[in-house]
C-alpha cells in the first residue's frame, strides 16, 4: 500500500479583531487578502467571505458578548489545496445563536418563526465543512473550503470532520 504525504499546513494569516459591531467586515477583508494568492475561484471566495463574516459576527455578539476588550482570533491556514479558517471567541461552550430549528422561510413569512436566525444556516451552506470545538473558554468554529472547486451541497443538519464536535 502506498500513501501520499499531505503537505504541512501553512499559516497564511493570524490576527485578532476587537469585539465591536461591524468588525466582521474587517475580518472578511483580512481573510480575503490572505487567500488572494491561493487560487480560490471568485465565487468560492465570496462564499468563504460570507461564512467568515457570519462566524465572526456570532463570535463578537454571542461568544464575547460585544465586549471590545475581548478579541476574536482569526487564523487562516492552507492545508494542501484546502483553505481552513478558525475563528475563536472566549465565550466557552455556548449555545448557537438564534432559534434551534432550521430556518423555514414560509414559517417566517407566516410569523411562526422569527425573521432572524439565518447566520448558522448561511455558514453551513457556504463552506465545504464546519467544525466546532471548545477548549476551556476558547470556542472555535473552523471553516474549510476545499480546493478543486468542490461545490457544497445544501446543508441537511450534519457536521463533517474529526475532533470534538458539537451538534448545532
Amino acid at each position, binding site marked *: 500500500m502506498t500513501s501520499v504525504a499531505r503537505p504541512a499546513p501553512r499559516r497564511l494569516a493570524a490576527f485578532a479583531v476587537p469585539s465591536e*459591531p*461591524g468588525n*466582521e*467586515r*474587517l475580518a472578511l*477583508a483580512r481573510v480575503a487578502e490572505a487567500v488572494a494568492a491561493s487560487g480560490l475561484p471568485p*465565487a468560492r471566495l*465570496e*462564499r468563504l467571505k*460570507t461564512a467568515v*463574516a*457570519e462566524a465572526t*459576527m456570532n463570535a463578537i455578539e454571542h461568544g464575547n458578548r460585544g465586549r471590545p476588550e475581548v478579541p476574536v482570533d482569526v487564523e487562516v491556514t492552507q492545508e494542501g489545496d484546502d483553505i481552513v479558517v478558525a475563528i475563536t471567541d472566549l465565550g466557552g461552550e455556548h449555545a448557537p445563536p438564534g432559534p434551534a430549528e432550521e*430556518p423555514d*422561510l*414560509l414559517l*417566517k*413569512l*407566516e*410569523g411562526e418563526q*422569527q*425573521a*432572524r*436566525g*439565518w*447566520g448558522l*444556516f*448561511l455558514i453551513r*451552506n457556504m463552506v465545504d465543512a464546519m467544525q466546532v470545538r471548545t477548549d476551556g473558554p476558547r470556542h472555535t468554529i473552523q471553516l474549510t473550503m476545499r480546493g478543486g472547486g468542490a461545490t457544497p451541497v*445544501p446543508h441537511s443538519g450534519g457536521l463533517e470532520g474529526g475532533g470534538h464536535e458539537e451538534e448545532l
Partner: protein
Amino acid sequence: MKKSCEAAVHAVGGTAVIELTGEVDGGAAGVLNAAYEQAVGSGDPGTVVLDFARVGYINSTGIALIVSVLARARAERRKVVASGLSEHYREIFDITRLSDFIEVFGDLDTAVSQLAGPAA
C-alpha cells in the same frame, strides 16, 4: 470602511422602486422600513422593486430585514421583486428560498419594463 445603507424611492407607473445603496445589515432596518413606508404610502403600488445594484454587502440580519419587508408586502397583497443582485447574493436568495417568493431580475430597467408589460 462601512457604507451605511441609503435608499431612494420613486414610482414607475403602478410600481414602486426602492434603490438601495451601501450595506444591508442590522443598521439598515430604519432606512429600509422608512423606504417601504414611503414606497407604499403614495399610489398604493401593486409591486415593490428592491434594487440591489449598488449594494456591496448583505448579511444574515439584512436577509431577515428583507424577509420582514416581504412578509409585510404579502400581508398587504403586494408583490416584491428584486433586481441588480450579484451572482453571490442571487445564490443566497436561492439557498434561503427568497427567490421562491421574490422574482429576481438582472437589472432595474429589465424589472421595470417586464412589470410594465409589452408596449402598446
